[in-house]
Structures are given as C-alpha cells and as structure tokens.
C-alpha cells in the first residue's frame, strides 16, 4: 500500500516494536541481528535479553550477544485469526537459532501454506513490518524468512 497524497504523514514512519531488541541495517551490506543476552558463566542465552541469568541468578554474568542471523524452522502453524493491524493468515513458528536458542517468531516472505513450509528448513532474519498502527505507521520487528534456494 503506497502513501497517498493528502495523508496525514508525508511518508509512513517505520517504528520498531521495541527499542534495543534488534539491529536494523543502516547501510548496504550490513546485516540485521537480534540483541540477546548470554551468560558468561553458564552459557544460557535469552532473547529478548534479560539482565540477570535465570539459571545462575547472580548479577553481572549476562553480556550482550548478537545472534539470530540464521536458524531452522522447528515447528509452525498457520493462524487464521489476528489482532487489529496484523495480517491474517499468519505463520507462527518456533525457530531454532544457529546459536542454540529456540525463539518464537512470525515467518514472512513465503505463502502461508503447508506446502511452502518444511520443518527443518533454513531461515534467515529480516527486519520488516509486522503491523500498521492506528496512525498509519509501520511497526517493524524481527521475523524469519526462508533462505532463497534452500
């Protein structure tokens, strides 16, 4: 959907769903990543990152970790209802990241059909629109899409 003349805004704003959650490429060749936290002591990694490791439960063990560029589709479901602003049907999934953690994500860049999706398929991180807000802005977030040719 293109911005029409006379819209309240000159162009739609792209607003991250939350600050500090992911890195959005600013220049060509740059890649997006998820901003997670990894425990220096036990290796536990969580996304979104929390300040204290829930396994060690002591302060100062978590450090920022940039993860999630690649992953594999662990499981999914095509959901045929959605909240206002979101697209229906949507592909909801668990993605097993290369670094270990399994995270919940929407899948994008592919038809929401059983045939187009295979458990174990290679996925890559993209930062793209998950919904339009009431003011017509695009709310962007992390999502995964099938790696071309995989």
């Amino acid at each position, binding site marked *: 959907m293109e911005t029409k003349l006379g819209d309240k805004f000159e162009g739609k704003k792209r607003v991250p769903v939350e600050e500090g959650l992911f890195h959005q490429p600013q220049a060509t060749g740059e890649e997006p990543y998820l901003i997670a936290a990894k425990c220096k002591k036990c290796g*536990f990694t*969580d996304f979104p990152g929390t300040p204290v490791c829930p396994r060690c439960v002591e302060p100062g063990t978590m450090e920022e970790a940039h993860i999630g560029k690649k992953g594999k589709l662990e499981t*999914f*479901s095509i*959901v045929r209802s*959605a909240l206002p602003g979101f697209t229906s049907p949507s592909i909801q999934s668990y993605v097993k990241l290369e670094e270990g953690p399994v995270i919940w994500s929407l899948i994008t860049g592919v038809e929401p059909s059983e045939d187009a999706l295979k458990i174990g398929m290679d996925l890559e991180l993209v930062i793209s629109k998950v919904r339009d807000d009431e003011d017509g802005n695009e709310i962007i977030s992390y999502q995964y899409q099938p790696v071309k040719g995989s």
Partner: protein
Amino acid sequence: MREVVVLGVGMTRFGKHPDKGLKELGTEAIWNAVEDANIPPKDIPIIYVANAMGQQLTELRGTIAQHVVSHAGFMGMPVINVENACSGGSTALRSCILEVASGNYDVAMAVGVEKMCIADTARSAAAMAFGTILGKFGFMFVGLYAMNLRRLMEKYGLTREHFAKVVVKNTKNGALNPYAQFRQPRTMEEILNSRVVSDPLTLLMCSTMADGGAAAIVTTRDKAAKYSSKTPITIAACELVSGTPTSADAVHVPIETRASRQAYEKAGVGPEDIDVVECHDAMAPAELLIYEELGLCGEGEAGRWIDEGKTEINGVVAVNPSGGLASKGHPVSATGLAQISEIVWQLRGEAGERQVPNAKIGMTENAGGWVMDDNAACAITILKK
C-alpha cells in the same frame, strides 16, 4: 500445619451474561458457595478474589475484590486481590488453604470472577493476546497450542482424529453439566469440518471467552463437621509453580510435570491413584499433552488412551467430566475454582448424570499466562474424599 477441607463450593453458569458484571457474577458464586457450605456468612473472616481482565474490560479499575464482595454483603475483613492469569482461581484457593492450615483463620473463602463477553470483542481478544509481551509481535495463544500439538503429531504419530476424539468426549460430558456454556455433544465430523483456526486446531476444539464466577470455602476438618453434614473434601496438596528457563543445552521439564510431581509428593499419592481430573484444556486436544505431563499415561501413550476411552467418565481415570474448558467456556480467573467445584461434586457423589463412579481422589490442573517461553503459572490441587 492443620488439615484443610473444602466445606462448600459454588459457581455461576459460564457463558454470556449481558446483564451481569463482575459484581453480580461474583455475588452469585459467593452465595452459592455459602449456601453449599451451610455456614453463617459472618463466620467467613477473610476473602481472596482472583480476577485477570477486569481493569481492561470493565468499569472496575482496581480493588475489584472489594467491589465484588461488598456487593455481596461482605465488608470489614481482610480482602485480597490476586491475579495469576488463567491460574488465578487456584492461586486464591492456595492462599485460603494457607490461612486455615497455619491457624491464622478457621475459615477462608476463595472467589474467581471474570467478565469477558463485552460489546467490543476486539478488546477482549487483545486483553487475552497482550497478556504476554509476545502479543505485540503478533503472537496468538492458539498458534502456540497448535505448534505443541503438531510436535505431538510428528513425534508419536497422533492425528487430527485423536484431537477430535477429545472434543467428542468432552462435549458429551459438557452436555450433562448445567453450568456449561455449551451443552451440545459434537460428532467427529462436525469437529473436523469446523473452520480451521490454526492447523491442526479447528474452531470446535477451542475454548471460548465467557463470563462467570466460582467460589470455594475452606476450613479445618473439625470445623467442617460443625457446619455441614456434607462429606468434607480434604485438600491433600495445592502446589503453585512458575515457568522455568528454556535452553538448547538442557531438557525443559514441562511446568505441569513440575507442579504435579510436587503435588503427588505432598499428597502422598501417585498418578495411578487419581480417579478424576479436571485439566486446563484451553484448546481441548491439549488434554493429550497433559495426560503425559501429569504422568497419567506413559510417554507417547496419549493417543492410545483416548482411542481406548481410558479418560471417559467410566474409564480408568475420568478427565474433564465437567466438559472441560471448551464445553464450559473459560472465564479465566473463575476456571480454577470451577475445576475445584467439579471435583468436590464428584468426590461427594453429587455430580448427577456425569458422576464418575466411586471417585475417591481427584485432581485439578490450572495453568496460565506466558512469560519467557513457558507458562507464567501452574497450580495442581489434589483432593481426597
């Protein structure tokens, strides 16, 4: 700690109550429980009330417990608002048990009440979805359940037919329950052919929002005899846990398993001793996962269990004789205490047409919320005749 028993229970019918708000629903549940307990109302010295969505969906924006209980005529005593998503009702009960077990009070009343069927259904849906932070990314609970069931299909070869069989069983039970929102038995065909909501889940496999209230009054065994001639139902365990971290380098024990192990140990019984279970099947096929998580059946046996009718009212262990959440409707904070009500009726032998024969030990499983890749809370209660 003193032995605590359930003296009385009560609930409203679950479903759409356009003429009733939280105060009216709560009042009805409270007075049903008071009547069932045969207790002078002034002997109730403390009340806990669970509610999850009132602040978002009704005109009450706080101290909902006090608004509800004062409407019902109860003022002056300690009144405490608790919330634990869908586990709120059990959480209120747990607190009441502690008040009585500790000797702090001889009697306590737990109430769960929820108003979800409002004119603006989008608001209700959003209140459900945004109960977890993932909501803002597009997360839907139904998709989560669907993915968990899909794993079951892949791992153990379960089919959509297995899932539908759970709904056949539960809607048959629910049809016998005067408190259930839906009282129509459903066929395999109807269930499988209803609209796909989130594959493999169809519409008739999913619970619906509802309005409703439920309450339980607990006391000591000695006091129970003083008030009521009904069989006091002993609370052998009521264990609450929250979720644990999930990580690629460690096996994640399901929250229901952790809670039920604690409960079995505390009650001194095993899963093989349980005669009747009310479990938290917000999507009915999730029952199959729960069989295994509670240790009722062994790994990978859930499909065979439903095929062989082991969880029917006349089976090895009756699961959801009330009809479960999909038949009863799911007014979130009332659900836990409705489960308790059903088990109390079953153990007393008061469950009418849906009575489980010779039920002596019952269990409820009441899970809720979603935080950091696990349920926010899960409560398991074991009740004995």
